C-alpha cells in the first residue's frame, strides 16, 4: 500500500513539467492552429536560463524568482519567434508554419550550444526542499510534494484566465472561430502574439521547474516533444484540463510501467495514445473539428494538368542527363544522387496522400522504415535473395499501411495526423525494444545488394530506374481517374459521397499506395546503406518528409521531389560547416518567409508574373 501511494505521488510529480509544456502547446494550437514543433526547444531554453539564474540568485527567494524569470524570458523569446518567423506566414497553406518551427528548432539547438557549451548541467536542488518526507513508511522527496501542490495551482490560474477574463473570452472565441473574432474587430495579431507568449512562458516554466529533478542538456528538446504530443492528443488539442488529465495519466502509467513491464516502457505510451484515439477520436476533452477549418485556407488548389510536350521533353532530357552521370561524374556523385533519388521518392509518396489526397500524415516514416526492415529481416533470418527481399519491401509497407490506414481514415484533419503519428511511434518503439528480433538500437547490418548490383554504378542505375519510375507512377496516378476521385474526396467529401464515390475506400487505397511507395523507397535505402536502424522510423524521419513537401510546395505536384532534392543537397553541403544547424535553420526560415507557397509554388507564381508561364484559365 505504501509503495503504491509513493508510486502514485512520483507519477503526479512527474506530470508537472509535462503538463506545463503540453498546456502551452495545446493553447497555441487551439488559437493559432500552429503545431509548434519548437515547443521542446522552449522547454530546453527554460531549463538553461533556470540553471544560469539559480547559480546567480541565492537562497529560497532566488530559486523561485529564477523559475518565474525563466518563464518570462522564454515567453519573450516566444514573442520574438511569433513576430519574426510565424507572422509572415500565417496566410500560407494550413500546417505550413510547422516548417518554420522546424527551422526554429535547428537555430535554437545551435545557439544553445554556442551560449552554454556542450556539457550537461545538473539542476540545483531546491533550497529548503532537499530531503524526504515519510509517507506510509516510503520516502517521498519534498520537492515532489511541492510540484504536486504547484501544478493544480497553475491549472487553476490558467482556468481562471481562460474562463473568467476578457482575454480568456477572446482566446476561447478564437479557438472556436477565429475568422469571426477577426470580423468582430479583435486584433488577431496581438491575440496570437499574446497566446504565443503565454504558451512559451509555460514551456519555459516547465523547463525551469523540473531542474531539481534533472538538469539542462542539449537533447532535452527532442526528448520531451513526442511525450508532449501524446499528452496533447490524448487530452484533446486545445484543451487545458485535457492536458492536465492526460499528463497525469501518462506519468502515472509510466511509473507503474517501470515496475511491471520495465522493458516495454516506450511502447506503453503509444498504445495508450492509439487506444484513446480509437475510442475517442478527439481526445478525452477535445471538441470535434468544424468542417472547413482544415484543408482549405487561402487560395483554392489549382486544377492539375499533365505536363505539356515541352515539359515532357525537358524531363526526358534531365533523365538522360542523370543516366550519363556515371560516365562523367565521380563515384561519390552517384552515391549522393542515389540518396537524393531515394529521399525524393519517399517525399513524393507522402505528397501523393498529403497534397492529392488531403491526408496529412505525421507518421510516414513507419512505411519507409517498415519496408526497409521487412527486407532486412528477410535477408537476416531467411537468407532471402536480395531481389525477392527488395520486392517484399513495398508489399510489407503497403500491408502495414492498409492495416493502419483502416483505423486512421475514420478520423480527419489534425486527429488523423496524430493517429498516424501514434501508429508510427508504435512501430518505432516495437522495433527499438524488440531486441531479439530487430537488434534494437544495433539494427540489422550486412544487408547488401546481390552481386550484379553491388557496384556503385550498377546500384545507381537501379535506383534511378526504380526511383524515377516510382515518382512518375505516382504522378500518373494523380492524372488517372483514381487521382480525380481522390481529389474530389479531398475538396469536398460530402459532395464526392453524393456523386456515388466511396470516400473512405478511395482514401484507404491512397493511404496504402503511399505506404507501398514509401516502402519501395525504404527498400532502395536499406540496400544502398547495407544496414538499417530504428532512427529511420523515428518521428524525425516523418517530419523530414513533411517538411520537404511543404518546403517544395504543398499545392503542387512536384513540390515534394523538388523540396527533397533541395534539402538533401543543402544538408550535404552545410554539414561540412561548424554551425550547420544554425545556417540550415535560418535557410529554412528564409525560404518559408520568401516563398510561402513553397519553392515550386512560388517559382510558378513568379513565372506567371513575368510572363514565362501561362496563367491558368480559371485565374483570369
Amino acid at each position: 500500500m505504501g509503495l503504491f501511494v509513493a508510486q502514485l505521488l512520483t507519477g503526479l510529480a512527474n506530470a508537472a513539467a509535462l503538463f506545463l509544456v503540453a498546456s502551452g502547446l495545446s493553447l497555441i494550437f487551439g488559437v493559432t492552429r500552429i503545431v509548434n514543433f519548437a515547443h521542446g526547444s522552449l522547454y530546453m531554453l527554460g531549463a538553461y536560463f533556470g540553471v544560469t539564474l539559480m547559480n546567480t540568485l541565492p537562497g529560497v527567494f532566488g530559486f523561485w524568482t529564477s523559475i518565474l524569470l525563466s518563464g518570462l524570458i522564454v515567453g519573450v523569446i516566444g514573442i520574438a519567434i511569433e513576430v519574426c518567423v510565424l507572422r509572415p506566414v500565417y496566410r500560407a497553406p494550413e500546417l505550413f508554419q510547422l516548417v518554420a518551427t522546424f527551422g526554429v528548432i535547428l537555430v535554437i539547438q545551435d545557439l544553445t550550444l554556442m551560449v552554454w557549451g556542450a556539457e550537461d548541467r545538473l539542476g540545483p536542488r531546491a533550497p529548503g526542499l532537499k530531503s524526504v518526507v515519510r509517507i506510509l513508511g516510503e520516502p517521498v522527496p519534498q520537492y515532489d510534494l511541492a510540484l504536486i501542490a504547484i501544478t493544480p495551482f497553475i491549472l487553476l490560474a490558467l482556468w481562471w484566465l481562460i474562463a473568467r477574463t476578457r482575454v480568456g473570452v477572446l482566446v476561447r472565441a478564437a479557438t472556436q472561430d477565429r475568422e469571426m473574432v477577426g470580423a468582430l474587430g479583435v486584433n488577431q495579431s496581438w491575440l496570437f502574439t499574446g497566446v504565443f507568449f503565454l504558451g512559451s512562458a509555460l514551456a519555459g516554466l516547465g523547463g525551469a521547474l523540473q531542474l531539481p529533478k534533472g538538469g539542462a542538456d542539449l537533447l532535452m528538446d527532442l526528448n520531451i516533444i513526442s511525450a508532449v504530443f501524446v499528452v496533447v492528443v490524448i487530452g484533446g488539442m486545445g484543451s487545458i484540463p485535457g492536458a492536465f488529465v492526460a499528463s497525469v495519466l501518462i506519468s502515472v502509467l509510466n511509473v507503474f510501467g517501470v515496475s511491471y513491464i520495465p522493458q516495454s516502457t516506450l511502447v506503453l505510451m503509444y498504445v495508450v495514445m492509439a487506444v484513446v484515439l480509437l475510442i475517442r477520436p478527439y481526445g478525452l476533452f477535445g471538441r470535434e473539428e468544424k468542417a472547413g477549418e482544415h484543408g482549405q485556407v487561402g487560395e483554392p488548389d489549382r486544377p492539375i494538368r499533365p505536363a505539356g510536350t515541352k515539359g515532357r521533353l525537358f524531363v526526358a532530357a534531365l533523365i538522360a542527363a542523370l543516366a550519363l552521370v556515371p560516365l562523367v561524374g565521380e563515384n561519390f556523385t552517384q552515391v549522393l544522387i542515389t540518396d537524393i533519388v531515394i529521399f525524393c521518392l519517399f517525399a513524393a509518396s507522402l505528397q501523393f496522400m498529403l497534397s492529392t489526397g488531403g491526408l496529412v500524415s505525421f507518421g510516414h516514416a513507419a512505411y519507409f522504415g517498415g519496408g526497409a526492415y521487412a527486407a532486412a529481416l528477410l535477408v537476416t533470418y531467411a537468407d532471402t535473395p536480395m531481389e525477392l527481399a527488395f520486392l517484399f519491401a513495398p508489399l510489407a509497407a503497403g500491408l502495414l499501411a492498409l492495416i493502419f490506414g483502416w483505423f486512421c481514415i475514420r478520423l480527419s484533419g489534425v486527429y488523423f495526423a496524430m493517429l498516424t503519428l501514434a501508429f508510427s511511434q508504435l512501430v518505432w518503439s516495437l522495433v527499438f525494444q524488440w531486441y531479439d528480433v530487430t537488434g534494437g538500437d544495433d539494427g540489422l547490418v550486412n544487408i547488401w545488394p546481390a552481386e550484379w548490383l553491388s557496384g556503385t554504378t550498377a546500384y545507381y542505375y537501379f535506383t534511378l530506374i526504380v526511383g524515377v519510375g516510382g515518382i512518375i507512377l505516382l504522378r500518373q496516378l494523380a492524372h488517372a481517374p483514381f487521382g480525380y476521385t481522390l481529389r474530389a474526396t479531398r475538396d469536398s467529401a460530402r459532395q464526392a459521397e453524393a456523386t456515388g464515390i466511396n470516400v473512405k475506400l478511395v482514401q484507404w487505397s491512397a493511404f496504402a499506395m503511399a505506404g507501398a511507395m514509401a516502402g519501395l523507397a525504404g527498400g532502395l535505402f536499406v540496400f544502398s546503406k547495407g544496414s538499417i536502424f530504428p532512427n529511420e522510423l523515428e518521428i524525425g524521419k516523418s517530419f523530414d518528409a513533411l517538411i520537404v513537401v511543404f518546403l517544395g510546395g504543398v499545392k503542387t505536384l512536384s513540390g515534394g521531389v523538388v523540396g527533397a532534392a533541395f534539402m538533401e543537397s543543402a544538408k550535404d553541403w552545410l554539414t561540412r560547416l561548424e554551425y550547420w544547424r544554425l545556417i540550415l535553420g535560418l535557410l529554412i526560415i528564409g525560404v518559408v518567409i520568401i516563398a510561402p507557397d513553397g519553392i515550386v509554388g512560388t517559382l510558378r507564381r513568379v513565372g506567371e508574373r513575368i510572363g514565362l508561364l501561362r496563367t491558368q484559365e480559371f485565374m483570369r
Partner: protein
Amino acid sequence: MKQIKTVVAAAAALLTVTGAALAADSIKIGEINHYKRLAAFAEPYKKGVELALDEVNEAGGVLGRPLEFIFRDDNGKPGDAVKIAEELMTRDGAVMLTGTILSNVGLAISSLAGEKKYIYLAAEPLADALVWESGNPYTFRLRTSTFVQAAMLAEEAAKTDAVRYATIAPNYAYGTAAVEAFKENLKKLKPEVEFVTEQWPALFKIDAGAEVQAIEAAKPDAIFNVTFGTDLQKFVREGTTRGLFDGRNVYGLLTGEPEYLEPLADEAPEGWFVTGYPWYDVKDGPAKDFVDAYIAAYPGETPKIGSLVGYMTVESIAALIEKAGSTDTDALLAAFKDLKVETPMGEIVYRDIDNQSTMGAYVGTTAVKDGKGVMVDWEYKNPVAYMPSDDDIKAKRPAE
C-alpha cells in the same frame, strides 16, 4: 517536372563547391562523428585528436608526410554516416576511416567497410558486436570492450557477501550487452547470486523516481548501474534523496569517467566501485605526460576519457601507417595484425583474433573531494585476463 533539373543542378553545384583541393601531400584520415548530436562527448574527443595530430606533425608526420584528419558531422544518423564515409574514401582521398561514439553508427560504417574494403578503426563505440558478432576483417576497435569492463566489476562484486542484485541499464543494445556480461561473469564466480530486478529506462528518458522505487521494492543487496549522462545524474539524485544507496554496494560501468562524474560535482555518489578515468590522480609516466600536455594545450579544460581515446586513435593510426610503410589498403591491413602502439595507458596491441585493442580500464571507488567527484584507490587493469576465451570469440565472429 522541374524536380530532376534541381537534382542535377544541386549535384553540379556540389561538385564545384566540394572539389576544393586540400594540401596535396598530406595523408588524410576520414573522421566521422556526432559533433552536434553528442557534443558533450565529441568535443573532448576532437581535442584529443587535434593534440595528438599536432604532436605527430611537429615530429615530422608519418612517412615524411603530414597527417591530416577530415572531420565530418553525421548528426548521429547511420545513413548519413555511410554516405559521408563513401565521400571521404572516394572523393576526399582518405586512406582509412575512424571515429564515432554511437554504436549504431559504428556498426553501419563497419558494415560498409566490410563490403567496400575500407579500413575502419572504430574509436569509441561501446557495442562489442563490432568486433564479435558483426565483426569483419576491415573493422578494428580501440576502446575497451564493454564485456571486459563489466567483467572487472563482476570480479570485485564476487568478493562481497551480496547475493541479491538489481541492475539498471539504458534500454538499448549497449545496456543489454553490459548487463548480460555482468551476469555471466558474476554467476561464473559466484553461482549463488540472484538477480531480483532488472530496470530498463529508455536512453536519456529515465523516470528516475519510478526506477528508484522499483529497485527499492525489490530489496537488493547490491546494484549494477549502466546508466550514464543525464540518466545517471537523475538516477543518482533521486537515489540519494530517497536513500536507495544506503548500505548497498553499487557497481557503476563508466560512472567514473569525467564526462559523467564531473557534472555531478559534490553530489557524486560515494563508495561506488566503477570504471572510469582518474586523470587528476595519475602521478608519472606517459599517462601524466598526456594530462600535462592536454591541460597546456587547452587551458581551463581537463581531459575526459574521450580526449584520451581521441589521442590514442591518432597514435594508433600513426603507428599503423609507419609500420605499413605505405597507405595502401592491403599494406595497412597487414600492418594492423598484432600492431603495437605506445600510448598514455602503456603499450596496447591490436589483437589478430578479433581486431580489438588491448586498451584497459581504470577501476576504483568513487568519493567526493573538494566538492568534486573523484575515483580513489584506483588501479589500471589490463583487459586480456578478462576477455572471453579465444574459442568463444572464434565462435562469435562470423566465418571469414
